[in-house]
């Protein structure tokens, strides 16, 4: 049983370290999701099933969903902004045309 725990804890440390060095935000959120899954496995090895269910449902489930929604929202704002810039860059062109005539 302890060998299994040691493996899980090694996984935990790898996940934690890789989160801080990963460049892409999506990757770090995914790694964090796996971190909390491994954590709920660890709770089971430590003989506390209550914690396992709660960590799985609340930690892995809800927190990761909130992270994904935040990233989506930020991504959405980026796209909206780029589309506005394109609209802004297109519309002055016709005005210049107007002045030439």
């Amino acid at each position: 049983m302890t060998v299994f725990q040691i493996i899980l804890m090694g996984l935990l440390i790898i996940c934690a370290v890789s989160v801080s060095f990963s460049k892409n935000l999506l990757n770090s959120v995914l790694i964090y999701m796996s971190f909390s899954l491994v954590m709920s496995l660890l709770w089971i090895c430590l003989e506390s099933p209550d914690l396992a269910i709660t960590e799985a449902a609340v930690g892995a489930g809800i927190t990761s969903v909130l992270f994904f929604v935040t990233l989506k929202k930020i991504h959405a704002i980026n796209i909206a902004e780029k589309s506005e810039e394109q609209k802004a860059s297109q519309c002055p062109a016709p005005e210049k045309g107007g002045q030439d005539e």
Partner: protein
Amino acid sequence: MSKRKPAEEYHKTFAFHFFSWLQGEKDPYLGNVEMKPQEEYVIDPEMQLRHEKEHDAILDKVYDMAHNRELRLFHRLYQATSILFCLFLMALLLVTISHLPATGAAVKPVNNEVAARYIESGLEETGAVNIVAGMILDYRAFDTLGESHVLFVATITVLIMLRLDKNKKGEPNPLTRDMNPNDRIYEPKNDAILQLVASFLVPIIIIFGIYIILNGHLGPGGGFSGGAVIGAGLILYLNAFGFSKTERFFTEKTYKWICFFSLSFYCLAKSYSFYTGANHLHSIIPKGTPGAILSSGLILPLNIAVGLVVACTMYAFYAMFRKGGF
């Protein structure tokens, strides 16, 4: 006596400064306080404009992180000191852990008469088969009361931050007008695969969640985990079928009233048991036969209340993050 020095050279000597200070004429702190009347300060617009431009230029130079030498140095210094502080903290913690009692050992200060009583008389005092559930909802109920209020405060703050309200005159709040209210533009319309899977998975998830809540006092799980599972089910349903479908049965009013009723029930039930406990009155809540669903006094209704609150909160979080409304 000494050769007369020219005036401006004399002004630089220490003696001049000392005597003018002595005279009370020139003050080291306030500069010279001579008696000339203050002439009127006239502001001409052109000079002011130049000031503005210079000011912005200086500001840009001062605050751009990349080239400013002191800021970069300060930044690197800050990083170095915090890394050192963290390493020192880690070393300190590891040393303390090496002195702590061994984990897994049966005889250590943690396993004292407090834990013994929970295990031995936990069943007949609280009626809950799951001793942990009995402990958090009966022995140390005040913590869990505080706990659900932590969740409630977090919901309030998220509502403050993300809820887009139309004030009385109808136009949105000037501060948050740049948050576009409807996110539906960026997501694929009724994605067929997701809807099929959701129509199959959502009922199972919700039944599983209800099972966890109801068996909170019998097996592992309880209000929090069951509520989170149901919340996850609702979020999956929302993702698959969009806000129009969920608004049929889950609007802001239902959220508000569910939270209100379950939290106030939770508060009143627990304060009843605190009051009767503190004044040594006999509380009329039956313990029921251990192992049956309707056993262990207040724990089942409390679990249901907490489950409802957590489910609505998780759904509200997702809806707020997604659309700033329900």
